[in-house]
């Protein structure tokens, strides 16, 4: 499955990147293709392009704050979870995706 994701936390120093690392690793283990955009203190990195988003089956928002450029995801199915969920139970997020797609 092709997945895009956005991570963002209040301070943007630690959890944004921890969650991104975690999602990337678990996705890989489950055989998914994933690209994670981080919206942290360094600004937006690993930008999701229009074509990334168009090709994705689903988008994951693991965020505690508003996602920047949310309108980019119009027309894509989005699952939004608190960022902590990506650390606590990332497998659970992917299981939920499997069920919903």
């Amino acid at each position: 499955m092709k997945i895009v994701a956005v991570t963002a936390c209040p301070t943007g120093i630690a959890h944004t990147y921890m969650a991104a690392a975690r999602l990337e690793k678990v996705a890989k283990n489950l055989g998914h293709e994933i690209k994670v955009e981080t919206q942290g203190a360094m600004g937006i990195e690993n930008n999701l392009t229009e074509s990334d988003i168009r090709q994705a089956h689903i988008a994951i928002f693991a965020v505690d704050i508003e996602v920047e450029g949310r309108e980019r995801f119009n027309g894509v199915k989005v699952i939004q979870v608190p960022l902590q969920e990506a650390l606590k139970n990332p497998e659970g997020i992917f299981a939920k995706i499997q069920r919903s797609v």
Partner: protein
Amino acid sequence: MTHGTSTSEQFVFSCSLSSGLHARPASHLAEVANEFVSQCALTNLRNGLFANLKSVLAVIAADVRHGDQCVIRIQGPDEQSARTTLRRFVEEALPEYDTPLAATGTVARNTTPPRVLQAAAVGCSFGLPVSRGIAQGRVVIMNDPVLPSVSSAPTGADPQLELQLIKDAIASVHKRIQEKLNQPISPSGAAVLQAELAMVRDVFLAEKLTEQVAQGKSADQAVLETGEFFTGLLRHSESESIRERASDIEEICLQLLDEIQGGVPRAVVELREPSVVVAETLAPQQFLALDRRWLKALVLEYSTTTSHTVIMARSQGIPALVGVKNARLVLLPGREVVVDANRGFVVPQLSSSVQRFYKREQKTLERRQEILHRAAGPTTTADGKTLEVAANASSSEDLVLARENGADGIGLFRTEMLLLRREDAPSEEEQFAIYAEAARTSAGRPVIIRTFDIGGDKAVPYLNLPAEDNPFLGYRGVRIYAQHQNLVQSQLRAILRASSLGDLQIMAPMISSLEEVFQFKAGISQAKRDLTLKGIAFNLNIRVGIMIEVPSVAFFLDQLCAEVDFFSIGTNDLSQYFFAADRGNPKVAGLASVRHPAFLSFLKEIVTQIHEAGKWVGMCGEMAANIQHLPLLLGLGLNEISLPAAEIPDIREKISRLRVADCEETLSRAIACRRTKEVDDLLESAQPSQTAQPLLSDQLVLLGSTSQSKEEVIQEIVDAFYIVGRTDDRHRLEEALWTREDLYSTGLGYGFATPHCKTDAVSTDSICVLKLNQPINWGSVDSEPVRMIVSIVMREPQNSGSHLQVFSTLARQLMNEEFRDRLFRVETAREAVTLLAQQLG
């Protein structure tokens, strides 16, 4: 003089004292006015209040606050010289009486104790810390002396008799204060007594008392009503520091009452064990009566940062809090409490967790001191050159501030204050006491003592200095020494005696010719001979230097270098003499800019010549205290700069970021400029870039931590930042970490937690690693206890060399099992730093 018309002299001044014309400056002003026969009056243009300038009380009651415009009118036979002297005094000398106390007095008031104490559920009482420190003792409640509202015998039989009673009482109180002044006393204690003395002999007070007695009142009643009148007047003031003087008046009136009623002493509180004295307010006399051996801390419900009691507490190192609401109700007599006058609260009981907290706190403070002492020494620039950063001082309080701010010594110890505000010359012993204190406090670092720099603009009654029309070009500084040999000799002997206790050096003010240097040195030789004859120890090789304040000295520096050991440039006078422009006259002050290219060129020439002769040169004028000037000062190649102590940490930090090579270039370009404005623009662009300090240091790796809770861990991290000097505001750093922690736990599972924050309470981006001996609960996502803490603190606003990339790499690495294992297995701080440096690039 024209017949039939009355002339008068007047001028307007603007009060530059930050706490207004409070008791001390007012008493000096009155002292100067009392030198003259003419009537002197002040009108405060803001509130229209009018005062006889010769009355301290009247001046205080005029409620002159910072920025107020006042007119001073003088009328009488010596009105012209009175005008000149008063004007000089107001514009030049008065600003020196501004208390430098604000530096420690304006500490922000905390409203929450550290989380460790919050968790211990002790309800702390908050106050404003005015004398720092932490102390423990049992509560002793003291009640204020209160003036009874009515005397037992309100009417007097014979006005003449009652008046005599009052006169006698004033004379005895006057004498008693004078006696205390003659005993060894700290300069701040002396200042208190001097201000009281001024009140006792105040003409306005005497007038009021006489008036009351003339109305048929008894002496007691007259004192009571007069006291009420004045306290009412002062309590009405809009300035807090003036309102506070009401208690000084009450104190004086109580002493007068004691005298009138036959000298029955008031009950004195006796301390018998380590005590914390708790009171509504505490009069200076009450404070002085307390047994210093047992007085550990003061907690006052009212009082300001500048009260006399507070000043004395600070100079004696007694922790004090003011503005502690309902302290006498909340703190129980006999109960053991901790006064934390670093943070600003009293802990009302000593549970085991409170004791544990303060035990850890004591270790933190000790380690911080160790690091500060180790860090002392010349500050190094980014390209490895050194510059000593010393402090200017004129009192015990300044010496303490200098030490606290890590000064490399005292570059200018002004001694004029010892001469002012008194009726006779200070004794050699009195002088020795303060110089000895300077030597001891400075612990081996140099202290440059400038001998008396007085003259027509500073009133010193017992020297009978003539009033001059142009005192700055007149009889001042070293020029008066020949006529006042005794005074100068007593000062030189006092300095020499104290030179056996530390590195004291002697510096002469206002040197303009070689003859003056010869005479000055002859005076020192004389003092040395006298001490040798008496068998008194002193430093035989004491260094002798001169101030560079008069432009003429720049033209025979080679001869001077052969005669003296060092120089210190006094830019304030040097620039006004160089440009022939009075710094005190706003119309021309702008001409005397120390940043004018011609002046910079002049300075460069002076420093170059002195260095060619192999001698040492520092700078102690205001030019050295302006952080914007640092590129120029480093470009000049000075050996030392001396400035107010509170500025030192910032200045040091900036020096470490500048390169001397760049500064020399900046100075050359500044000298080539045509106008001061161009130099200003140049300086604007010559400020250093922020180069980042390392993210990690061994001292921020805490292996084997014995913390027992999340609160203690975060406190330990904050303390580590404080110890290495990366934060001065532990409260704000702690709050920033907890604000993030309170959103949701930073426990990321696998036994790891990452408390983090963005804050301007730290000087630089940092990582702190802590490994616990015993795992603790952190509310982690996997509910497992935590043993390894990696804390990330980012400075905000960001420095240009910010470490965002490193932080995000670290965050990602923490998700990597192999990295976590390696970090968990490190055994030394060095290993941890190396591992992180490798992994994070």
